């Protein structure tokens, strides 16, 4: 990119962010909550919009796409980044459309209807220059940011609707959203939480300690005991890493088992997922879906001899099919898994899906 202090500074930040993302990968999932990542991403994008050089929406979008690709490449498992990029792109489209006067046209989801009505393709424009576009976009992005700020609270606000007194609730691993959710509920009601530790990372322990501090009656169980204990559980409340386009989950390892167990005992499975976790991805056998960390997590290096003959795998994520999920609780309320695709089409523009 061209010289000039602004740009370099910008690129510095981007670089920093990338390296940060790269580091997140190691070991226990992400070091920071995905909410934080989302916020940082958006902030960064805003900065790009503000500082980078662009004359028309088209250019800006290209710019953002480019950066977005790099970011997603840096940590493919962290879909939040990509989602945020898409959101921003969508925003730009809208803003552009608005400033072009003709509203709702571009943000119309590709559909039969469009197939019938629309004449020319929508991409050729975006080239015109609007002086106030920048301001508007940034404005919109700020709104997005504020929305992001609020998500967790919005979700946890609904806690009381879903947790009754003296319920036994099971969760797995550590999700900040769920944590907030439960704590919020705990302020009014007493209930018993069972946390599956979720080996090998054992985020569950962290979760349990922090819950018990709010004196919620908490029990840590090894992953193996999930099924054994499930028969006494009233509700399963879990977080997730990504919500897929078909309403499935890409959640921490072991969740699928948990979901199956819940199904077997027909225990409702509630997923707390903020909107920014929705990703237009589908659960195909795309190899980026799984993520593996060092087998060291499962089998210590000091095992010695046998290591050369053994393959140890340590996947980080599970795919949970939508039919195992009862309910999604997002910051805009509860939805059934079958409704996710709709939200998806509201959030993102189809043309931004692939990137």
């Amino acid at each position: 990119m061209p010289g000039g202090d602004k740009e370099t500074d910008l690129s510095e930040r981007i670089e920093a962010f990338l390296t940060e993302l790269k580091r997140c990968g190691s070991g226990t999932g992400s070091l920071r909550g995905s909410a934080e990542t989302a916020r940082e991403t958006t902030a960064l994008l805003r900065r790009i919009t503000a500082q980078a050089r662009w004359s028309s929406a088209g250019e800006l979008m290209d710019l953002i796409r480019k950066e977005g690709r790099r970011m997603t490449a840096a940590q493919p498992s962290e879909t939040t980044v990509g989602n945020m990029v898409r959101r921003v792109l969508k925003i730009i489209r809208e803003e552009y459309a608005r400033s072009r006067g003709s509203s709702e046209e571009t943000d119309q989801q590709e559909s039969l209807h469009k197939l019938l009505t629309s004449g020319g393709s929508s991409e050729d424009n975006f080239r015109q220059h609007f002086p106030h576009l920048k301001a508007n976009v940034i404005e919109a992005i700020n709104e997005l940011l504020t929305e992001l700020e609020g998500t967790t609270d919005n979700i946890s606000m609904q806690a009381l609707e879903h947790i009754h007194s003296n319920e036994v609730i099971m969760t797995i691993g550590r999700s900040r959203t769920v944590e907030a959710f439960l704590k919020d509920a705990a302020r009014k009601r007493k209930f018993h939480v069972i946390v599956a530790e979720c080996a090998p990372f054992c985020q569950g322990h962290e979760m349990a300690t922090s819950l018990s501090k709010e004196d919620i009656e908490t029990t840590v169980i090894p992953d193996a005991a999930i099924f054994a204990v499930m028969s006494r559980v009233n509700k399963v409340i879990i977080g997730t890493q990504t919500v897929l386009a078909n309403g499935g989950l890409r959640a921490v390892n072991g969740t699928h088992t948990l979901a199956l167990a819940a199904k077997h005992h027909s225990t409702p499975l509630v997923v707390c997922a903020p909107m920014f976790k929705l990703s237009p991805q589908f659960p195909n056998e795309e190899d980026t879906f799984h993520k593996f960390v060092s087998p060291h997590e499962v089998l210590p290096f000091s095992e010695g001899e046998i290591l050369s003959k053994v393959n140890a795998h340590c996947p980080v994520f599970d795919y949970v099919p939508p039919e195992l999920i009862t309910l999604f609780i997002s910051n805009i309320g509860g939805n059934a898994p079958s409704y996710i695709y709709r939200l998806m089409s509201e959030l993102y523009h189809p043309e931004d899906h692939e990137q």
Partner: protein
Amino acid sequence: MAGKAGKQNRARKAAAEQDEGEQPLQAVLIADSFNRRLFPITKDQPRALLPLANVSMIDYTLEFLTSTGVQETFVFCCWMSNKIKEHLQKSKWCRPTSPNTVHIITSDLYRSLGDVLRDVDAKTLVRSDFLLVYGDVVSNIDVSQALQEHRQRRKIEKNISVMTMIFKESSPGHKTRCEEDDIMVAMDGKSKRVLHYQRAQSLKKLQFPMNIFHSGSDEFEIRYDLLDCHISICSPQVAELFTDNFDYQTRNDFVRGILVSEEILGNQIHMHVTKDGYGARVSNLLMYDSVSSDMIRRWIYPITPETNFAGHEGQSCTHSRHNVYREPGVSLGLGSQMEENVLIGRNTVIGANCTISNTVIGANCVIGDNVILDRAYIWNRVHIANNVKVQQSVICDGGEVKQGVTLNEQCVLAYNVVVGPDITLPGGTVLSMHHPDEEDEDDDDDEFMSDDNAVGLNKDKTKHKVFNPADVGAEGRGYRWKASSLEDTEEDELAECIWGPVLNPDPDSDSSSQVSSGFDGPSYPASPEPDDVKVFQNEVHGTLQRGLDENIGCDNLVLEINSLKYAYNITLKEVMQILTRVVLEFPFHQQGVEITTSQYTSHLLPLLKKWSPVFKNYVKRVQDHMDCLASIEEVFLERDTRWAALVKVLMNMYQLEILEEEAIMRWFSQAATSDKSRQLRKNQGLLKFIQWLEEAEESSEGDE
């Protein structure tokens, strides 16, 4: 200036790792091995640039340094420095945005690590503690903790600790523990101070300098479960120290030097043991093998093939079940299956019905049908025809393997070698386009270990510059480097060089078994006395021998033996046993074993007579008698043909009043330990002797 911005930026993040006011962390990276381990491969490409899992090694090293928070790296290269230089300039490390600024320093004068560090000192490049790594270290260890410890130490006692070596915990027998940095470290449990550092390789008996045990620490550990990562945190005076004493060539010299002269210089070396990091140095092809397989198996996460950290375009590969990695543009024939741990470079074409496992294939290779690859390392632009079978071998860039060739374990095809068709290379074959003779003409400017090339020079001038079809097949091109036939020191030396010292990849069990003794804390060095006893015995024998030759007085002998006794701290009991044994075996040593009994006795008796004072000196108490007898017995038990002599010996000793009769009686009467000794007691002569003794006793009583 962008670079500086980067640094500040980095520094902000790195603040966690290093307290403020510290200068940015520096590193010295030596992109040269200063040996010809990987000859002839390194003839065409410096080691640092050899591809490991399709990325050249130096990139791994730099990635490691960067991710661990290094902000300034000095790359020292010498052999093929220009290549390295251009590689680096192309790479992302030299981009302005790189958080880690890389300075490349080249000189053809470097002969060893020593030279480099002296140069570092001369140029005063380093301002504070720095990391010292080789260009072929692959690691994901986060040294920050070690660094802190190091700095802590240096704060506490100024400039005492000069170096912190980083080790990885890995039980012996691990594949990645190559035999030659199979090390044995004696350390101070509390202060993590290295007391003794030696290579356990091929020595069956460990000896530790006594002084390390006298050193104040109450708890020290002797550890054999460590893998040397060849990463060390050095303080500036390391460079100075190198400058001071010129005999330091390698780090080992240095370490040994420091440890030995610890009292004098007052410098110490500490160590840091990491559990969950990974760090290893690709010092030979065995290590190359194991490290790349570790890479494929993701042990070095987050440095894995699919996180394309080196930032080359279009090299991002996908990872799927059973650790199968594919870069874009790979095409696979029908029915060819990649079993597990396979990495295939971009635009590589693989034919039908191939079986590939534990293999790395570079970019733009063409592989035919029905090819079986196992533990093969195939670099770029390699052509492999149909029906080829490759096991644990390396094929460098541009190599070509024709129809129906079989490469057995540990073959190496250096650059552009062509093999085949229809030939089977025996294990450990090394082929190169360079003729073995060339090496000293063009090489001794960069390698200092080329002293033994004289041999290489004058031999086989005959087959000069002509490819031997027996070696490389009809259409083959290349020279055989290691002929397994000729017993040339230089040759198998080379062989050892290229695939580490152990030609069988699986570790020998006895090394691991011998560990167990060394493992736990303050156990004395794996009980040395059996050996000492041996030594002592020889000594005694020598003494007596001399005593015999230049007939020294018995009292002198006694003196000597005593001194020996103290030297080897041997108990009196043992002394006696040994003494007896030695004396009794003396004739054998003189006359050889096959002398007849009569000769034996005839030799022995005078000796006994001669040395009876010596015996008397040691054999005093009743117990001594018993011991003495016991050892006599066992000596004779070993040679059951000599039992006749036993009686004479006893008789003699009795008469010389070395042994008292009741002692003998007691010995005789006491229950025989083994059935053999029981037989011995049945021995005619002995019975007579005993009988005689009894009578003598009675008679003596009768006298009174």
